[in-house]
């Protein structure tokens, strides 16, 4: 059996994964705060047929070793936390983060999750919650009669009732040393992992944190043109590996034809 077949099959599998990831990026092109993913591959074991050889003991020149690689495998799928473009919505409780940081929200089991999706609404008890119903942390309660809610770039939430401005609280952001190590929970939320590091919290506009933009939402950082060209490249690479399988197969057929 031609061992190159398996090598090419691993290449086809890798390109399939690439297309799957691109498809998910494209499916989320309009998801608020979505961050695109990128697949990273690595080569696998090498069979060393012969090690490096010294041609002539008096001459330090060596011949390189002869090594045959056995294909490719997935190294990791990385989320790229680059900034998405802010989009104007005009809703007072839509907030985009321009720069570093995540909103902190409390999940049903009491743990904290992190999100860039600032589509907030008010709950029946006056708490500020995400579109999924999770409370923004630290808790900020808005009185029932509050009007003209304002959220400043530095995160201060105010209400303005007939000329008097009252401060209701301040939004706190969290940031991570390695945001691509965060785990996706769905619903645009992430949880911390050993790879992401511990969250560092701070107010917006403090050193290292972004500012808040009220009445805006962060669109996804998926660029359709980029994804489409990547898709074409992946499709061609898949075809090339399929051709390599075919070439290996033809060689086997030729060998089999030796016996009459």
């Amino acid at each position, binding site marked *: 059996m*031609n*061992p*190159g*077949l398996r*090598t090419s099959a691993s*290449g086809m599998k890798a390109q399939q994964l*690439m297309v799957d990831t691109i498809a998910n990026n494209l499916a989320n092109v309009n998801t608020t705060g979505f961050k695109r993913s*990128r*697949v*990273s*591959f*690595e*080569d696998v*074991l*090498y069979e*060393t047929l012969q*090690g*490096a050889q010294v041609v002539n003991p008096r001459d330090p020149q*060596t011949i*390189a*070793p*002869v*090594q*045959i*690689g*056995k*294909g*490719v495998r997935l*190294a*990791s799928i*990385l989320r*790229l936390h*680059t900034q998405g473009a802010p989009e104007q919505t005009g809703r007072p409780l839509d907030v985009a983060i321009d720069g570093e940081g995540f909103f902190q929200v409390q999940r049903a089991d009491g743990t904290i999750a992190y999100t860039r999706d600032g589509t907030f609404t008010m709950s029946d008890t006056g708490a500020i919650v995400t579109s999924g119903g999770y409370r923004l942390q630290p808790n900020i309660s808005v009185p029932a009669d509050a009007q003209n809610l304002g959220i400043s770039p530095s995160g201060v939430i105010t209400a303005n009732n007939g000329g008097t401005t009252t401060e209701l609280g301040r939004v706190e952001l969290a940031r991570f*040393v*390695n*945001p*691509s190590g965060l785990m996706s929970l769905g619903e645009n939320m992430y949880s911390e992992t*050993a*790879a*992401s*590091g*511990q969250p*560092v919290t701070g107010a917006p506009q403090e*050193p*290292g944190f972004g500012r808040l933009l009220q009445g805006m939402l962060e669109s996804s950082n998926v660029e359709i043109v980029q994804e489409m060209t990547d898709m074409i*490249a*992946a499709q*061609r*690479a898949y075809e*090339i*590996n399929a*051709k390599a399988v075919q*070439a*290996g197969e*033809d*060689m086997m057929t*030729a*060998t089999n*034809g*030796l016996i009459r």
Partner: protein
Amino acid sequence: MTLRGILNAAHGLSYYSRLQEVTANNLANVSTDGFKVDRMTGQLAPGTSYPVPVQHLDLAQGGLRETGRELDVALTGPGFLVVKTPQGERLTRGGSLHLDPAGQLVDPDGNPVLGHNGPIVLTAGKVEIQSDGTVKADDVAIDQLRLETVADPSQLRKEGTGRFVSDAKTIPADTATTSLRQGSVEEPNSDAILGMIDLVTIQRAYSANVDALKAMDGVLGTVAGEIGRV
């Protein structure tokens, strides 16, 4: 002599099937960051008339692809990053680095990437990796990544997962020619079109050898079956 001819054709077949494997591996890795292609050529062994495989590692620079991820590093120039594996120090062309639970900067396999003072620990702050390898967290310099190379690339062996083993001592890379780029990865230096052409050539050469073998087998058959007949 026909028997020698059959042997030569068989050696040719074995050479071309290895060449096909190497080409298949180069093509399987057309999307692998930091991958360097292997080039196999045939060389006539002294006193014979069949090719013996000779390989060299093509260390040509791959294109850079911007990702915007802070822990993606690409190298330009002849240098390598140094990682510490349980088997000893290994060289790598960078790529997508990670942090382990202790905050150490590691390669995709969890091997620490070494700076001049050993593993680099990043626990908080914005990571900045400068072109000379200086790693900063929130503008405070932590360490400088070791950039090394070898005098003779033929002494590098591939270990898989993007790592290279050097049989000779590594030397510091020349910082004038080697630099790091944060937020980018190095694309493989393979050429899919050349690979396809190679595949076709290999396939045809293989069939030609098979045909030659068949022809010589036919001659032998005639010799054994007909000439001897009275």
